[in-house]
C-alpha cells in the first residue's frame, strides 16, 4: 500500500495573539521532521538554534532551527534546503508583493526537494500572492484585512475562503483562538 503523500504548502494566517505561532510549534514538534524557521529578526523563535546556512554542514541539522532572513543571500541559501519543513514566519517582512522568481521556483520545486512549506502572516495581504497560487491548505485565525486583494491569485475556493474569514472572525469575538483548517482541493 502506498501511503506517500504530496508535499504541502500551508498558508497560516492570524492577527497578533490569535495563537498561530503556538499552533505552528505544535505541528512542527509533532511532525517528526526537521524544520527550518525563517524569521525577519532575532527576537522570534529564540529557543531554537540559529542557522546561518552558509556551509554544507549547516544543512545537516536535525530538529528545529531558525534562520534570520538576510536579503543578501538567504533566498539562495534556502533554495538548497531539502527534506524537511520550511516555515516563512512573518513573510511580509522580507518578501514583497513582487516576489523574486527564486521564491516561485522554491514553491514549484518543493516536491523534488521533499519540502513542506508554511507561509505565516497577519492576514491575506501579508503573504505574497505567489504562495496562494500553490497553496494546498489554509489555517485561518482571525484576520482583519481585505481578502479581495488576493482574489486574482486564489484560484480555488475563493468564495468559501472569504465566507470562512467572516465565519472565523465572528467566532473570534467569543474565542480569539478559534481557527479553521481548509484543505484546498
Amino acid at each position, binding site marked *: 500500500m502506498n501511503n506517500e503523500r504530496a508535499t504541502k504548502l500551508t498558508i497560516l494566517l492570524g492577527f497578533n495573539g490569535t495563537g498561530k505561532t503556538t499552533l505552528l510549534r505544535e505541528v512542527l514538534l*509533532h511532525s517528526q521532521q526537521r524544520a527550518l524557521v525563517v524569521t525577519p529578526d532575532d527576537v522570534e523563535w529564540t529557543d531554537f538554534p540559529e542557522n546561518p546556512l552558509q556551509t*554544507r554542514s549547516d544543512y545537516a541539522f536535525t530538529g528545529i532551527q531558525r534562520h534570520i532572513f538576510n*536579503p543578501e543571500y538567504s533566498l539562495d541559501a534556502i533554495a538548497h534546503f531539502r*527534506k524537511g519543513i520550511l516555515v516563512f514566519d512573518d513573510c511580509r517582512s522580507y518578501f514583497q508583493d513582487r516576489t523574486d522568481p527564486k521564491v516561485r521556483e522554491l514553491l514549484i520545486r518543493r516536491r523534488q526537494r*521533499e519540502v513542506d512549506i508554511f507561509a505565516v502572516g497577519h492576514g491575506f495581504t501579508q503573504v505574497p500572492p505567489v504562495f496562494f497560487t500553490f497553496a494546498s491548505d489554509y489555517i485561518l485565525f482571525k484576520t482583519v484585512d481585505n481578502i479581495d486583494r488576493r482574489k486574482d491569485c486564489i484560484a480555488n475556493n475563493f468564495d468559501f475562503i472569504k465566507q470562512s474569514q467572516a465565519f472565523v472572525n465572528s467566532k473570534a469575538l467569543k474565542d480569539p483562538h478559534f481557527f479553521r483548517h481548509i484543505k484546498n482541493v
Partner: protein
Amino acid sequence: MLTDSLVEDEVVNSDYNFADGDLSAFQSEFSQPKQDMGISDIPDDLEDEDVEQEQLAEVEDRAAMTRHARQTSKFVTHIVDSGAALGLSLISKNSVDSHKADSDDLKELERIFTEYFKETGGNIPLWAQLLICLTTIYGFQIPQALKDRKLNLERERLELERKKLELEKEEFKRLKEAELQRIKTQQKENDEQRKSN
C-alpha cells in the same frame, strides 16, 4: 446575531473540506511520509567549504553590513517613535503612549530604515547612538525640570512667607494681651485712687 447565523448556515451546508478548531486530519496527513525523491539532506550542488571560503567572506561582509543596518534602523526607529510621540503629547497633552506607532507600523518603518541604511552604508557609531539615546531620554526632560525648579522655588518662598506671617501673628497676639493687661491694671489703679479721694 442574524449575520452570524447566516454565515454559519452557509458554511455548514457547504461541501468543502474543512475542520473548525481541529487539526487532527491535517496532522494525520502530515505525519505520513512524503514521496521519496531519492535525495540527500545535504545539497549536492553546494561547493565544499574550503573552496567557497572567499565567497563566504564576501557574503559575511554583506551579512555584517545588513546586521549593522538592521541594528541601526532598530535604534533609529525607536528614537523616532519616542521623539515623535513625546512631541505630539506635548501638543495634545495626552499620554506619550497614546501617540506611539503600533507594531506593524514600526516594523514597516524599521524595514524602510534598514533598506535606507544598507543603500547609503549609513552606520551610526555606538558612542553616537548612546549620546542620542541619553539626549532623548534625559534631554527632553530639561524643560520640565526647569519648570519644576521654578515651582519648587516658589513653593519654598511661600513657605517662608507663611512662617513669617505666623510669627508676626504670634507677636501681635502677645502685644494685644499685654496691652489689655496694661489697661486693666490702669483701670484698677484709677479705681483705687478714686476711692481714696
